[in-house]
Protein backbone atom coordinates (compact mmCIF):
# COMPACT_ATOMS: atom_id res chain seq x y z
CA UNK A 1 0.00 0.00 0.00
CA UNK A 2 1.24 3.44 -0.91
CA UNK A 3 1.14 5.71 2.13
CA UNK A 4 1.62 9.40 2.67
CA UNK A 5 4.49 10.16 5.00
CA UNK A 6 4.42 13.90 5.08
CA UNK A 7 7.33 14.38 7.42
CA UNK A 8 7.77 11.28 9.52
CA UNK A 9 8.11 7.57 9.07
CA UNK A 10 5.36 5.23 10.24
CA UNK A 11 1.63 5.14 9.58
CA UNK A 12 -0.32 8.13 8.34
CA UNK A 13 -2.33 9.98 11.00
CA UNK A 14 -5.77 11.51 10.60
CA UNK A 15 -7.28 13.89 13.18
CA UNK A 16 -11.05 14.09 13.64
CA UNK A 17 -12.22 17.18 15.52
CA UNK A 18 -15.49 19.04 16.03
CA UNK A 19 -18.09 20.00 18.62
CA UNK A 20 -19.55 17.57 21.16
CA UNK A 21 -22.04 15.13 19.67
CA UNK A 22 -21.52 16.16 16.03
CA UNK A 23 -20.83 12.55 15.02
CA UNK A 24 -17.05 12.07 15.24
CA UNK A 25 -17.31 8.57 16.69
CA UNK A 26 -20.17 7.74 14.33
CA UNK A 27 -17.95 8.78 11.41
CA UNK A 28 -15.16 6.52 12.67
CA UNK A 29 -17.67 3.68 13.00
CA UNK A 30 -18.77 4.27 9.43
CA UNK A 31 -15.32 4.41 7.83
CA UNK A 32 -13.49 1.75 9.86
CA UNK A 33 -15.20 -1.36 8.39
CA UNK A 34 -14.73 -0.02 4.87
CA UNK A 35 -11.04 0.73 5.44
CA UNK A 36 -10.44 -2.65 7.08
CA UNK A 37 -12.16 -4.52 4.28
CA UNK A 38 -9.83 -2.91 1.77
CA UNK A 39 -6.83 -4.14 3.75
CA UNK A 40 -5.84 -0.95 5.59
CA UNK A 41 -4.25 -1.73 8.98
CA UNK A 42 -5.74 0.63 11.54
CA UNK A 43 -5.23 1.97 15.04
CA UNK A 44 -7.46 4.44 16.90
CA UNK A 45 -6.81 6.95 19.69
CA UNK A 46 -9.72 8.79 21.34
CA UNK A 47 -9.55 11.82 23.67
CA UNK A 48 -12.71 11.33 25.66
CA UNK A 49 -13.69 14.39 27.60
CA UNK A 50 -15.20 12.93 30.75
CA UNK A 51 -15.70 9.22 30.35
CA UNK A 52 -13.93 6.49 28.49
CA UNK A 53 -17.13 5.98 26.55
CA UNK A 54 -15.83 6.47 23.00
CA UNK A 55 -12.82 4.23 23.49
CA UNK A 56 -15.04 1.62 25.16
CA UNK A 57 -17.74 1.98 22.46
CA UNK A 58 -15.20 1.37 19.69
CA UNK A 59 -13.60 -1.51 21.56
CA UNK A 60 -16.94 -3.15 22.28
CA UNK A 61 -18.39 -2.50 18.83
CA UNK A 62 -16.54 -5.42 17.28
CA UNK A 63 -15.38 -3.28 14.34
CA UNK A 64 -11.74 -3.44 15.32
CA UNK A 65 -9.62 -5.44 17.72
CA UNK A 66 -9.90 -3.74 21.17
CA UNK A 67 -6.14 -3.64 21.68
CA UNK A 68 -5.86 -1.29 18.69
CA UNK A 69 -7.97 1.35 20.46
CA UNK A 70 -6.46 3.63 23.13
CA UNK A 71 -8.24 6.27 25.21
CA UNK A 72 -6.19 9.28 26.32
CA UNK A 73 -7.61 11.58 29.02
CA UNK A 74 -7.25 15.28 28.42
CA UNK A 75 -7.85 16.86 31.86
CA UNK A 76 -10.73 18.96 30.50
CA UNK A 77 -8.39 20.50 27.92
CA UNK A 78 -9.37 18.86 24.61
CA UNK A 79 -7.80 21.63 22.52
CA UNK A 80 -4.50 21.61 24.46
CA UNK A 81 -3.85 17.92 23.85
CA UNK A 82 -4.23 18.23 20.09
CA UNK A 83 -2.35 21.48 19.67
CA UNK A 84 -0.14 23.13 22.33
CA UNK A 85 0.73 19.93 24.18
CA UNK A 86 0.06 16.87 22.03
CA UNK A 87 2.74 14.84 23.82
CA UNK A 88 0.47 12.21 25.42
CA UNK A 89 -1.34 11.66 22.13
CA UNK A 90 1.97 11.34 20.29
CA UNK A 91 3.16 8.79 22.85
CA UNK A 92 -0.11 6.84 22.46
CA UNK A 93 0.21 6.81 18.66
CA UNK A 94 3.87 5.80 18.84
CA UNK A 95 2.90 3.00 21.24
CA UNK A 96 0.41 1.69 18.65
CA UNK A 97 3.07 1.99 15.96
CA UNK A 98 5.55 -0.06 17.99
CA UNK A 99 2.97 -2.64 18.98
CA UNK A 100 1.48 -3.13 15.50
CA UNK A 101 4.41 -2.74 13.17
CA UNK A 102 2.39 -3.02 9.97
CA UNK A 103 -0.02 -0.21 10.83
CA UNK A 104 -1.01 1.93 7.82
CA UNK A 105 -3.23 4.51 9.44
CA UNK A 106 -4.07 5.93 12.88
CA UNK A 107 -7.33 7.79 13.48
CA UNK A 108 -7.33 10.27 16.36
CA UNK A 109 -10.69 11.48 17.67
CA UNK A 110 -10.43 14.72 19.61
CA UNK A 111 -12.64 15.35 22.64
CA UNK A 112 -15.67 17.43 21.64
CA UNK A 113 -14.64 21.07 21.58
CA UNK A 114 -15.57 24.42 20.10
CA UNK A 115 -15.22 25.82 16.58
CA UNK A 116 -11.75 27.22 17.33
CA UNK A 117 -10.04 23.88 17.85
CA UNK A 118 -7.35 22.92 15.35
CA UNK A 119 -4.80 20.10 15.19
CA UNK A 120 -1.03 20.46 15.39
CA UNK A 121 0.65 19.06 12.29
CA UNK A 122 3.25 17.57 14.63
CA UNK A 123 0.46 15.26 15.74
CA UNK A 124 -1.50 14.46 12.57
CA UNK A 125 -0.87 14.66 8.83
CA UNK A 126 -4.38 15.60 7.79
CA UNK A 127 -7.55 16.39 9.71
CA UNK A 128 -11.30 16.53 9.36
CA UNK A 129 -13.70 18.75 11.27
CA UNK A 130 -17.20 17.38 11.88
CA UNK A 131 -20.14 19.73 12.45
CA UNK A 132 -23.78 18.74 12.31
CA UNK A 133 -26.99 20.10 10.90
CA UNK A 134 -28.67 20.01 14.31
CA UNK A 135 -26.35 22.73 15.65
CA UNK A 136 -28.02 25.23 13.33
CA UNK A 137 -27.64 26.69 9.86
CA UNK A 138 -25.45 29.53 11.09
CA UNK A 139 -22.46 27.37 12.13
CA UNK A 140 -20.47 27.77 8.86
CA UNK A 141 -21.10 31.51 8.98
CA UNK A 142 -19.33 31.63 12.36
CA UNK A 143 -16.11 30.76 10.53
CA UNK A 144 -14.27 29.10 13.41
CA UNK A 145 -10.63 28.21 12.70
CA UNK A 146 -11.60 24.53 13.00
CA UNK A 147 -13.92 24.57 10.07
CA UNK A 148 -11.81 27.00 8.05
CA UNK A 149 -8.43 25.30 8.44
CA UNK A 150 -9.34 21.62 8.35
CA UNK A 151 -8.42 19.56 5.29
CA UNK A 152 -11.96 18.26 4.99
CA UNK A 153 -15.13 19.70 6.49
CA UNK A 154 -17.89 17.20 7.23
CA UNK A 155 -21.45 18.43 7.71
CA UNK A 156 -23.12 15.45 9.36
CA UNK A 157 -26.72 14.45 10.20
CA UNK A 158 -28.20 15.77 6.97
CA UNK A 159 -31.13 13.42 7.64
CA UNK A 160 -32.41 15.60 10.48
CA UNK A 161 -32.62 18.87 8.55
CA UNK A 162 -36.44 18.82 8.17
CA UNK A 163 -36.82 18.25 11.91
CA UNK A 164 -34.59 21.12 12.98
CA UNK A 165 -35.82 23.58 10.38
CA UNK A 166 -32.50 23.84 8.55
CA UNK A 167 -32.60 24.53 4.81
CA UNK A 168 -29.95 22.09 3.59
CA UNK A 169 -29.43 23.85 0.22
CA UNK A 170 -28.74 27.16 1.94
CA UNK A 171 -26.41 25.45 4.40
CA UNK A 172 -24.51 23.76 1.58
CA UNK A 173 -24.08 27.02 -0.31
CA UNK A 174 -22.85 28.82 2.78
CA UNK A 175 -20.48 26.04 3.89
CA UNK A 176 -18.93 25.89 0.42
CA UNK A 177 -18.56 29.65 0.31
CA UNK A 178 -16.83 29.79 3.70
CA UNK A 179 -14.47 26.98 2.70
CA UNK A 180 -13.32 28.95 -0.33
CA UNK A 181 -12.99 25.93 -2.60
CA UNK A 182 -11.66 23.53 0.04
CA UNK A 183 -13.63 20.31 0.33
CA UNK A 184 -16.90 19.93 2.25
CA UNK A 185 -18.84 16.66 2.40
CA UNK A 186 -22.40 16.21 3.65
CA UNK A 187 -23.01 12.95 5.46
CA UNK A 188 -25.52 10.82 7.25
CA UNK A 189 -23.44 8.48 9.37
CA UNK A 190 -26.52 6.45 10.24
CA UNK A 191 -27.23 5.26 6.68
CA UNK A 192 -23.79 5.79 5.14
CA UNK A 193 -24.72 8.63 2.82
CA UNK A 194 -21.58 10.59 1.82
CA UNK A 195 -19.24 8.09 3.49
CA UNK A 196 -17.81 6.77 0.20
CA UNK A 197 -16.95 10.35 -0.64
CA UNK A 198 -15.08 10.76 2.67
CA UNK A 199 -13.20 7.52 1.98
CA UNK A 200 -12.28 8.69 -1.49
CA UNK A 201 -10.68 11.79 0.06
CA UNK A 202 -8.80 9.71 2.60
CA UNK A 203 -7.56 7.35 -0.08
CA UNK A 204 -6.45 10.15 -2.34
CA UNK A 205 -5.09 12.69 0.15
CA UNK A 206 -3.76 10.49 2.95
CA UNK A 207 -3.20 6.99 1.63
CA UNK A 208 -2.11 8.41 -1.76
CA UNK A 209 -3.69 5.40 -3.43
CA UNK A 210 -4.21 6.77 -6.90
CA UNK A 211 -0.82 8.42 -7.21
Amino acid at each position, binding site marked *: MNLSHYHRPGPARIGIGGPVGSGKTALIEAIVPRLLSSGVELGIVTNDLV*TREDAERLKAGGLISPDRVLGV*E*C*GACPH*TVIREDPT*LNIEAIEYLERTFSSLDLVLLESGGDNLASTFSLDLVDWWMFVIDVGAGADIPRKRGPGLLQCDLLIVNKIDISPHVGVDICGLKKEAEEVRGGNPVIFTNCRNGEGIEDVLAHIRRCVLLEDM
Partner: protein
Amino acid sequence: MSRESQSNILSLLNVLRHGDSFFPSGAVAFSYGLESLSSDGSVNSFEHIEEFIHSQLYGRWAGLDRACLVSAHTACLDQVDIKRLIEIDHIMDAATLPSLLREGSLRAGAAILGVHTKLKTPGVTEYREYILSGNALGHLAVSQGACFSGSGLSVVETEVISAHTLVVGLASAAIRLGIIGHIESQSLISLMGTEIEKIISLPAPEIEEAWCFSPVSDIAVMKHEVSEGRLFSN
Protein backbone atom coordinates in the same frame (compact mmCIF):
# COMPACT_ATOMS: atom_id res chain seq x y z
CA MET B 1 25.89 44.83 30.01
CA SER B 2 28.61 42.61 31.44
CA ARG B 3 29.17 39.13 30.05
CA GLU B 4 28.33 37.62 33.41
CA SER B 5 24.91 39.22 33.73
CA GLN B 6 24.17 38.19 30.15
CA SER B 7 24.82 34.58 31.00
CA ASN B 8 22.64 34.94 34.12
CA ILE B 9 19.81 36.13 31.94
CA LEU B 10 20.20 33.15 29.65
CA SER B 11 20.19 30.70 32.53
CA LEU B 12 17.14 32.45 34.03
CA LEU B 13 15.37 32.13 30.67
CA ASN B 14 16.33 28.45 30.53
CA VAL B 15 14.75 27.90 33.97
CA LEU B 16 11.62 29.80 32.93
CA ARG B 17 11.26 27.77 29.74
CA HIS B 18 11.52 24.39 31.44
CA GLY B 19 9.33 25.45 34.38
CA ASP B 20 6.63 26.93 32.15
CA SER B 21 3.35 25.05 31.79
CA PHE B 22 3.64 25.95 28.09
CA PHE B 23 6.48 23.42 27.83
CA PRO B 24 4.76 20.34 26.37
CA SER B 25 4.82 17.65 29.03
CA GLY B 26 1.33 16.14 29.17
CA ALA B 27 0.85 17.63 32.66
CA VAL B 28 -2.77 18.69 32.01
CA ALA B 29 -3.92 15.07 32.16
CA PHE B 30 -2.86 14.36 35.75
CA SER B 31 -4.47 15.26 39.10
CA TYR B 32 -2.69 12.81 41.46
CA GLY B 33 -5.92 11.86 43.22
CA LEU B 34 -7.34 15.38 43.42
CA GLU B 35 -10.23 14.67 41.03
CA SER B 36 -11.30 11.69 43.09
CA LEU B 37 -11.06 13.65 46.37
CA SER B 38 -13.02 16.48 44.80
CA SER B 39 -15.77 14.26 43.46
CA ASP B 40 -16.33 12.54 46.82
CA GLY B 41 -16.52 16.00 48.41
CA SER B 42 -13.53 15.67 50.73
CA VAL B 43 -11.55 18.43 48.98
CA ASN B 44 -13.71 21.45 48.19
CA SER B 45 -12.05 24.63 49.46
CA PHE B 46 -8.88 26.69 49.25
CA GLU B 47 -7.74 25.31 52.61
CA HIS B 48 -8.29 21.74 51.46
CA ILE B 49 -6.30 22.32 48.27
CA GLU B 50 -3.54 23.93 50.28
CA GLU B 51 -3.43 20.92 52.57
CA PHE B 52 -3.49 18.54 49.61
CA ILE B 53 -0.62 20.21 47.77
CA HIS B 54 1.33 20.56 51.01
CA SER B 55 0.98 16.82 51.61
CA GLN B 56 2.01 16.03 48.05
CA LEU B 57 5.13 18.15 48.48
CA TYR B 58 6.14 16.78 51.89
CA GLY B 59 4.72 13.25 51.69
CA ARG B 60 5.72 12.32 48.16
CA TRP B 61 7.92 14.88 46.41
CA ALA B 62 10.42 15.64 49.20
CA GLY B 63 11.28 12.04 50.07
CA LEU B 64 10.79 10.15 46.81
CA ASP B 65 10.58 12.33 43.70
CA ARG B 66 13.37 14.57 44.92
CA ALA B 67 15.67 11.67 45.79
CA CYS B 68 15.12 10.14 42.32
CA LEU B 69 15.42 13.48 40.56
CA VAL B 70 18.69 14.45 42.21
CA SER B 71 20.35 11.07 41.71
CA ALA B 72 19.18 10.93 38.08
CA HIS B 73 20.55 14.44 37.52
CA THR B 74 23.88 13.38 39.02
CA ALA B 75 23.90 10.17 36.97
CA CYS B 76 23.69 12.26 33.79
CA LEU B 77 26.25 14.93 34.60
CA ASP B 78 29.35 13.80 32.72
CA GLN B 79 28.31 10.70 30.89
CA VAL B 80 24.89 9.14 31.17
CA ASP B 81 25.03 6.27 33.67
CA ILE B 82 22.18 4.14 32.30
CA LYS B 83 22.66 1.42 34.87
CA ARG B 84 22.12 3.93 37.62
CA LEU B 85 19.01 5.38 35.93
CA ILE B 86 17.56 1.88 35.68
CA GLU B 87 18.16 1.35 39.42
CA ILE B 88 16.55 4.66 40.35
CA ASP B 89 13.57 3.83 38.16
CA HIS B 90 13.06 0.56 40.02
CA ILE B 91 13.16 2.30 43.39
CA MET B 92 10.55 4.80 42.18
CA ASP B 93 8.40 1.97 40.84
CA ALA B 94 8.60 -0.05 44.05
CA ALA B 95 7.70 2.97 46.19
CA THR B 96 4.62 3.90 44.14
CA LEU B 97 1.71 1.76 45.19
CA PRO B 98 -1.32 2.82 43.11
CA SER B 99 -1.05 1.55 39.55
CA LEU B 100 -2.53 4.74 38.09
CA LEU B 101 0.25 6.74 39.74
CA ARG B 102 2.89 4.40 38.31
CA GLU B 103 1.30 4.48 34.86
CA GLY B 104 0.85 8.25 35.04
CA SER B 105 4.48 8.72 36.01
CA LEU B 106 5.61 6.48 33.11
CA ARG B 107 3.37 8.29 30.62
CA ALA B 108 4.53 11.71 31.82
CA GLY B 109 8.13 10.48 31.70
CA ALA B 110 7.63 9.23 28.13
CA ALA B 111 6.12 12.59 27.17
CA ILE B 112 9.02 14.68 28.46
CA LEU B 113 11.63 12.26 27.07
CA GLY B 114 9.85 12.26 23.70
CA VAL B 115 10.01 16.04 23.50
CA HIS B 116 13.66 16.21 24.63
CA THR B 117 14.64 13.50 22.15
CA LYS B 118 13.12 15.59 19.37
CA LEU B 119 14.87 18.67 20.76
CA LYS B 120 18.13 16.63 20.70
CA THR B 121 18.86 17.28 24.38
CA PRO B 122 22.22 15.57 25.08
CA GLY B 123 22.09 12.21 26.85
CA VAL B 124 18.36 11.64 26.51
CA THR B 125 18.14 9.47 23.40
CA GLU B 126 20.09 6.55 24.86
CA TYR B 127 17.94 6.36 28.00
CA ARG B 128 14.78 6.55 25.86
CA GLU B 129 16.01 3.69 23.67
CA TYR B 130 16.44 1.54 26.77
CA ILE B 131 12.87 2.35 27.73
CA LEU B 132 11.43 1.66 24.27
CA SER B 133 13.18 -1.70 24.18
CA GLY B 134 11.76 -2.60 27.61
CA ASN B 135 15.08 -2.39 29.45
CA ALA B 136 14.31 0.69 31.56
CA LEU B 137 11.10 2.14 32.97
CA GLY B 138 11.32 5.91 32.52
CA HIS B 139 9.47 7.40 35.50
CA LEU B 140 8.79 11.14 35.47
CA ALA B 141 11.25 12.17 38.21
CA VAL B 142 14.06 10.11 36.63
CA SER B 143 13.26 11.44 33.17
CA GLN B 144 13.17 15.01 34.49
CA GLY B 145 16.56 14.49 36.14
CA ALA B 146 18.01 13.24 32.84
CA CYS B 147 16.36 15.89 30.63
CA PHE B 148 17.12 18.85 32.89
CA SER B 149 20.70 17.72 33.39
CA GLY B 150 21.09 17.48 29.61
CA SER B 151 19.50 20.92 29.22
CA GLY B 152 22.26 22.50 31.32
CA LEU B 153 20.11 23.11 34.38
CA SER B 154 21.82 22.86 37.79
CA VAL B 155 20.60 20.40 40.38
CA VAL B 156 18.89 23.15 42.40
CA GLU B 157 17.22 24.52 39.27
CA THR B 158 16.09 20.99 38.46
CA GLU B 159 14.58 20.58 41.93
CA VAL B 160 12.86 23.97 41.81
CA ILE B 161 11.37 23.27 38.38
CA SER B 162 10.17 19.80 39.35
CA ALA B 163 8.49 20.99 42.57
CA HIS B 164 7.09 24.15 40.99
CA THR B 165 5.59 22.33 37.99
CA LEU B 166 3.98 19.83 40.38
CA VAL B 167 2.40 22.68 42.36
CA VAL B 168 1.28 24.54 39.23
CA GLY B 169 -0.15 21.34 37.74
CA LEU B 170 -2.18 20.70 40.90
CA ALA B 171 -3.34 24.32 41.20
CA SER B 172 -4.39 24.26 37.57
CA ALA B 173 -6.25 20.97 38.06
CA ALA B 174 -8.00 22.54 41.08
CA ILE B 175 -9.17 25.44 38.88
CA ARG B 176 -10.50 23.04 36.24
CA LEU B 177 -12.28 21.07 38.95
CA GLY B 178 -13.97 24.30 40.03
CA ILE B 179 -12.48 24.34 43.55
CA ILE B 180 -10.44 27.55 43.40
CA GLY B 181 -10.20 30.57 41.14
CA HIS B 182 -7.31 32.18 39.30
CA ILE B 183 -6.36 34.58 42.13
CA GLU B 184 -6.54 31.89 44.82
CA SER B 185 -4.36 29.67 42.68
CA GLN B 186 -1.68 32.37 42.60
CA SER B 187 -1.77 32.80 46.41
CA LEU B 188 -1.44 29.07 46.68
CA ILE B 189 1.54 28.88 44.32
CA SER B 190 3.19 31.65 46.28
CA LEU B 191 2.55 29.94 49.64
CA MET B 192 3.92 26.68 48.30
CA GLY B 193 7.02 28.51 47.07
CA THR B 194 7.97 29.04 50.73
CA GLU B 195 7.54 25.32 51.37
CA ILE B 196 9.61 24.39 48.31
CA GLU B 197 12.36 26.67 49.58
CA LYS B 198 12.25 25.00 53.02
CA ILE B 199 12.44 21.53 51.52
CA ILE B 200 15.26 22.30 49.12
CA SER B 201 17.33 24.06 51.79
CA LEU B 202 17.79 20.66 53.46
CA PRO B 203 19.95 18.00 51.77
CA ALA B 204 18.10 15.63 49.43
CA PRO B 205 17.71 12.07 50.75
CA GLU B 206 20.07 9.52 49.28
CA ILE B 207 18.27 7.32 46.76
CA GLU B 208 18.75 4.30 49.02
CA GLU B 209 16.85 6.19 51.72
CA ALA B 210 14.01 7.39 49.51
CA TRP B 211 10.65 7.30 51.21
CA CYS B 212 7.06 8.24 50.61
CA PHE B 213 3.93 8.47 52.73
CA SER B 214 0.76 9.78 51.09
CA PRO B 215 -2.03 7.36 52.07
CA VAL B 216 -4.99 9.68 51.43
CA SER B 217 -4.03 10.55 47.88
CA ASP B 218 -2.91 6.94 47.22
CA ILE B 219 -6.36 5.66 48.17
CA ALA B 220 -8.00 8.44 46.15
CA VAL B 221 -5.98 7.41 43.07
CA MET B 222 -7.03 3.78 43.59
CA LYS B 223 -10.67 4.85 43.74
CA HIS B 224 -10.14 6.89 40.58
CA GLU B 225 -9.21 3.68 38.79
CA VAL B 226 -12.80 2.46 38.94
CA SER B 227 -14.48 5.84 38.57
CA GLU B 228 -16.96 6.07 35.68
CA GLY B 229 -16.62 9.69 34.69
CA ARG B 230 -13.22 11.26 34.84
CA LEU B 231 -11.39 14.18 33.29
CA PHE B 232 -7.91 13.26 34.51
CA SER B 233 -5.97 10.07 34.06
CA ASN B 234 -5.17 9.81 37.79
